[in-house]
């Protein structure tokens, strides 16, 4: 009886102990970009296993929601594929801290050409999406694809765009804006833009929706985040080599993405708000971007600020290792950017 009593006391003490520890744990909420959500989901379990005093919940809601809820204080980390604009920052002083670099590929579904890489350029893609280039065997497409000119079919191109507000649309439309003056003065760029009304143009929801739509619609073209490269390959979609600022057609490989990032490292300002689209450099892949964490420098309590800073520091350190980033085809931040981010993190207080 006495032994049982002692065991019960021990069990009670243990549960009380863990409960106390659990109660003392800090709760962090990350919400926002669906592009960086897979990476957060790979980071967080690894981090929380080693640090039991913090509970991090991740949520995929969209870049705009991430920014808005971080500003409102409902979430501690707002993940966004786009940095905040000047107008947004004027309303609320927030830190835009890059934690990773992602990229985007242009996928297409042209039977017979899905296993090779067609060459495409900003002006050509802009022409497809505004309806001025209507068929796959258009002269403009043929002129940059001498190798496959004969195999290009006379079929109408079906441009697929994102119907929900998205960071993918932001970086895609930025590429078109930076490379094509007519697009810059027309639809411009943003997480949602006024797509020119093209016959057969389709709107899809989310990256999986883009993959699905491209796969089931022959002769379609779509822009899809690089974390979905495995999915698009599985679906049998081809992806293009894009014309970069230096005039070369490059594929979204790691070296090419890293080359683009490195070109703009020296130009990145202290607040790290810069577009990496259409970077100079002969190997630079033109559609890459920083994945930002939007964070309020004034947190609700010292414990929250402290837990937040430790997680961010880990993400900038161990989090940059290949075993995390490779699963989503992101590349690590260049060293100087890591330092800039660390300086921003130091501004967080509770």
């Amino acid at each position, binding site marked *: 009886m006495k032994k049982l009593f002692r065991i019960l006391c021990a069990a009670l003490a243990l549960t009380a102990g863990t409960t106390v520890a659990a109660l003392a744990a800090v709760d962090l909420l990350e919400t926002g970009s669906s592009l960086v959500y897979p990476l957060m989901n790979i980071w967080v379990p690894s981090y929380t296993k080693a640090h039991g005093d913090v509970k991090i919940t991740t949520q995929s809601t969209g870049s705009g929601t991430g920014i808005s809820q971080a500003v409102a204080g409902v979430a501690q980390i707002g993940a966004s594929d786009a940095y905040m604009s000047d*107008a947004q920052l004027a309303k609320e002083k927030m830190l835009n801290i890059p934690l990773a670099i992602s990229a985007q590929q242009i996928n297409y579904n042209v039977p017979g050409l899905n296993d090779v890489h067609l060459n495409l350029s900003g002006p050509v893609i802009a022409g497809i999406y505004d309806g001025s280039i209507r068929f796959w065997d258009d002269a403009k497409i043929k002129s940059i694809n001498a190798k496959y000119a004969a195999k290009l079919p006379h079929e109408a191109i079906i441009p697929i765009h994102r119907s929900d*507000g998205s960071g993918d649309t932001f970086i895609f439309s930025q590429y078109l804006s930076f490379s094509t003056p007519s697009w810059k003065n027309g639809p411009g760029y943003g997480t949602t833009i006024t797509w020119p009304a093209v016959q057969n143009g389709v709107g899809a929801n989310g990256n999986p929706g883009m993959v699905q739509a491209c796969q*089931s619609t022959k002769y379609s073209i779509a822009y899809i985040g690089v974390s979905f490269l495995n999915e698009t390959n599985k679906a049998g979609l081809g992806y293009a080599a894009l014309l970069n600022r230096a005039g070369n057609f490059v594929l979204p490989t790691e070296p090419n993405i890293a080359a683009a990032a490195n070109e703009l490292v020296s130009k990145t300002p202290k607040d790290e708000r810069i577009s990496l689209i259409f970077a100079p450099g002969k190997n630079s892949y033109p559609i890459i971007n920083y994945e930002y964490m939007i964070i309020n420098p004034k947190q609700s309590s010292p414990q929250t600020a402290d837990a937040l800073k430790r997680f961010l520091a880990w993400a900038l350190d161990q989090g940059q290792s290949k075993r995390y980033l490779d699963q989503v085809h992101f590349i690590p931040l260049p060293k100087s950017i890591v330092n800039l981010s660390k300086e921003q993190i130091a501004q967080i207080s509770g």
Partner: protein
Amino acid sequence: MAASTIAGGAAKPRRPGVSPQDLVLRYGTTSCAVVTAATVFLVAAFLIVYSYPALRFNGLSILTGMTWNIGNQYGTGVERHGGFVAAPGASFGAVVFIFGTIASSALAMLIATPLAVLAAVAMHYRVPNRLKTLVNVLVELMAGVPSVVYGLWGIGVLVPWISNDLGPFLAARFPNSPLGGGAGSGNGLLATSLILAIMIFPIMAATMRDVISRFPKQTFEGAVGLGATTWQSVTSLVLPALKVPMFASAMLALGRALGETMAVLMVCGNALNLLPQNIFAPVNTIAAAIVSQLDSALTDPTGMAERTLAELALILFAITLSVNLVARLIMRGSDRVKRTA
């Protein structure tokens, strides 16, 4: 006996409606009704107050404009109108959403209502007694399928079927009609209407089955005794008598169709800035547009995009209200005709 127990046993009979329990019941239920009404008013008030800047900024152009443009978020300057500002170049037009909402809901009701009534008839009169509970549970289960799951099934099964099988079939038979023209990707008005019809079907079928099963047996048997077949009794006696519950469940179903968000979002094709040419073309509904545009709207520092989405919700509120009022007038009109005739 029961009488003496209820009356309290003694010689003095009680007047119904004045016991203390009755007062509690009366005031309790009245306060519940007040809460219900207040909730609706609160939602309406929220929408009106929140969208006020958008109402002033957009004016009537939102009902005639086809383009949805939240403006250049990264540009400089602002767009000024009606005393409020928006991002430069912003102009909000909701014609595409309004059309899609009304068209898809109308089509869905057209398909689902007769089928639901017929299925309810079958559920009561044709299903063998030992299977009745099972069938009833299964139909109610249809209402419990999450709308995201309907959306997933729509994307995975319905939309490819429309695109690969139905589209070419109809294009071959009716080449020069709204049914022809091929189905494109399959995401469009037809897919939306079909999914909505499937979703609202159980609301009407389960309710109708329930009220049909409560129809007085003597009345029914009387008709059969006079020589009517079961079918005649059902169509001429039971169904006309159940017009009121039928109407009520149809209004609830219509409400669900007008406001359905997730499933529609996934199969409608998310058309922006153009109206559909045939039933296969992509459409958009107010509810789906609110979800898909909300995230971008939140990036607008002027807040005008977010307010305009609230205005869209207000427009839907107005549409639902008008449809309900018109339907009630029609019902009352037909009753009056019957009585004078």
